Structures are given as structure tokens and as C-alpha cells.
């Protein structure tokens, strides 16, 4: 009888450990895979700078044109565009309806020339709103 009880406890502990181990695997398996969403958000951030550079919105600091682009991006995106002159923030535009900066998932940066000679640095941060 005593032997039986010891054996049952042994099994119970083994089973408990198995369940804990299985549960751990179940809940962590998804996180072990690569998440490519951030790669696409990075592309969107880079594209934002490229398009605004190509259509001269960046170099003219066109408020209307920049906001028009930011607001036409998908509803779930929040975007913040910052233009630096050296380390000083020269211009900042936040997509309408977005508030505080969230967990930034997409980041794009590029250097551009405006006013013929001045070199500026543009940065786009993108997150889910």
C-alpha cells in the first residue's frame, strides 16, 4: 500500500512537470517565429521619406503637402515626421488623430538638401495607433 502511494506521487509529479512543460511550449511557440511585420513598417517609413523627398514636399517644408500624405496612410498607422538641422528639431509633423508616440516599429531616415545648400536629416517613426 505504502509502495503504491509513493509510486502515485512520483507519477503525479512527473505529470505535473509534463503539463507545465507542455503549457510553456504552447504559449511560447508563436513567439519563437520571426515577425516580418516590422520589416514592412520599416519599408513604409522609408517610402514616406522617399515620396516626400521626390515630390519636393520635404525640401519646401510644405506643411499642407506633408500632412496630406501622412493622413492618407492607412488608418491603423501612426506616423511622426521630424526634420533635424544638426541636432536641432526644425520641423515636426504628427499624423492627425495620433497622440503620444507608441512603441515604434518602423523607422526610416534619410539626408536631404533644401534651400540649395543646407543639409537636413529627416526621420520617420511609425507605430500602430
Amino acid at each position, binding site marked *: 500500500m505504502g509502495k503504491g502511494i509513493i509510486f502515485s506521487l512520483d507519477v503525479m509529479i512527473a*505529470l505535473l512537470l509534463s503539463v507545465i512543460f507542455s503549457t510553456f*511550449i504552447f504559449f511560447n511557440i508563436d513567439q519563437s517565429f520571426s515577425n516580418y511585420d516590422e520589416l514592412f513598417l520599416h519599408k513604409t517609413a522609408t517610402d514616406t521619406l522617399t515620396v516626400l523627398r521626390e515630390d519636393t514636399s520635404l525640401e519646401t517644408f510644405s506643411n499642407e503637402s506633408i500632412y496630406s500624405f501622412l493622413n492618407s496612410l492607412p488608418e491603423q498607422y501612426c506616423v511622426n515626421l521630424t526634420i533635424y538641422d544638426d541636432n536641432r528639431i526644425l520641423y515636426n509633423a504628427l499624423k492627425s488623430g495620433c497622440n503620444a508616440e507608441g512603441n515604434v516599429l518602423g523607422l526610416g531616415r534619410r539626408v536631404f538638401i533644401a534651400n540649395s545648400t543646407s543639409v537636413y536629416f529627416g526621420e520617420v517613426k511609425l507605430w500602430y495607433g
Partner: protein
Amino acid sequence: MLLHKGQFFSVDIFLSVLLFLTILTSFFATHSYLNRTIESQEVKNDMTLIANSLSSSLVDTGGYPDNWETFDSSNINKNTVPALGLSRNTDGGSLDQDKVNKLVQLNSSYSNLKDILGIKGGGYEFYLKISGLFNLEIINNGEDYSCNGQTINGNVQENGNVAIQDCTVNGNVQVDDGKLKILRSVVTGNVILRNSDLEMAGTNVDGNLQVNEGGIIVVSDSIIDGNLQMTNGGSLYAAGNSIGGNLEAGCSTTVLESTNNDVEGDIDLCNGDGAYEIGIYPGNAENVVIVERYVLLKGNRTKVNLMVWENG
């Protein structure tokens, strides 16, 4: 004594077998679950990598050879054109209209196009949509007339802003020099606008939707029994509508986009439908990877929407 020992032994075996089967079943269930999860994730990874490299190739490069768009369509295959690209320059950011037009032509042979684009195996398909990028939000500065969940017997006629939601209008709706927002409603007559913006969604119009000197006209997921007609300017976005009559927009109207409309009559859009669709639309497919890119096309801001999906 023997009987007593045998009974004890049977319970022991029974418990052991039960535990063994439980552990075995759990093991196979876990194994099966992990296999399915990994397989599904592998397929998604595969499609993601295809979508990512394809979008980069199409948007960021001009293709190889660089002048592939000058080739005769019948001579374009994976040997003559190892890489398709739509960019005007190596810096990306701007698409070449001629290359876009040629790609649309190549869509007539979808399997050949898929082959050139390098989409192979796994029953993968693709869908590419190149359309204008615009802000469809109509800023509402307050209403001069509003209706919410009511039935209006008679015409609604206003010089200014009108908002109609979840209403039935037994008559016409006419708005001049303002904005009309009409959602999930029924109009038994015509909707007539002059020099006004329109946002219409989920609405049934028994008559015509007629816009003269229009502003931004956005019509989606609506049923118009008569004609949708635009004259003298304005911009039109029409998607997912059922139109019983004709869909007409004159040459002075910019067609932002006209897609997925079921039109029983004639379609007469002087400036085209504003969007290029290539490949096969995934519909309700479960496994779809979407990549959105932003570029310029003929100086206009444009969205390139690429979907790679698993067939079946």
C-alpha cells in the same frame, strides 16, 4: 489470497495503462499541434519572403534589362527578362508609366507573368494593385441639416452641410455648395449635388446619383438603381458599388479610383478607372501576406499594394 492479490494487480495495471495512454495521447496531440503550427508559419514565412523580395524588385528597381518595357509582350519570358522592375531610376521612389502599362499587358498570360516574377510552388498566387494615394476623409465643419435614424417624407434640399445616417428619405436629396455625408440610408428619389463633396456608404438610392461641378465624391458599398454621373470637374472614388444604370465621368473629372463596381449599364470613364490591377484577387483566402509600398507615378502619390496568397 490469490484472488486478493489479483485484484490489487489489476487496478495497478489499469492505472498504469491509463496514465501511459494519457501521456501518449498528450504527446501525439502536442506533436500534431506543433507540426501544424510550424508548417503554417513556414508557409507564411515563405510567402512573406516572396512578397518582400517581389515588392523590392518591382518598386525599387527598373528590372533587367532596363528597357524590358520596349520588348514585344510575346517575347517577354523569364529568359529574356530575368527580372521585372517598374522603377524609373535605381534610386526608386518613382514608377515608370510605360513599365506599368507593359506589366498590365503581361497580365493576359498570368502563368507566364508568375513565372517571370519567380513565384513558384506551394500553390502561391499574387495580386498587385497600383492606385492613387489620397485622403478620402471629408472634413465636416458642422451640419446645417442632419437626420439620424428617422424617416423623412419629402425632399431634403440644402445650401450647406448635410449629414444623413440610418435614415429613409422618401424623396430627393439635393445639396449645393456644401458637403453631404450619407451613411446606411435609403433615398427613394435622386441624389443631386452641385459644387459639393460627398461621402456615401452602405446606402440605397432608387434613382440617380448626379454630381455637377463636384468636389471629392466618395461612394462605397452602395446600391444605385439609376446612373452615377459626374460632370464638370470633381474627383471620383467609387468602390464596391452596385449600379443599375451607367457609370459616367467626363474628361474634366479625375477618377481617383473606380474598382469592384458591379455596373449593369455602360462604363464611360474618360480618364480610366484610376487603378491598375494585376494577378488574381485573393477574395476570402485565409493565408494572405500584404505589402504596401508608396511611390510616385507621373508625379502623383501612388500606393502599390502587393498580396501573395496561398490557393487552397
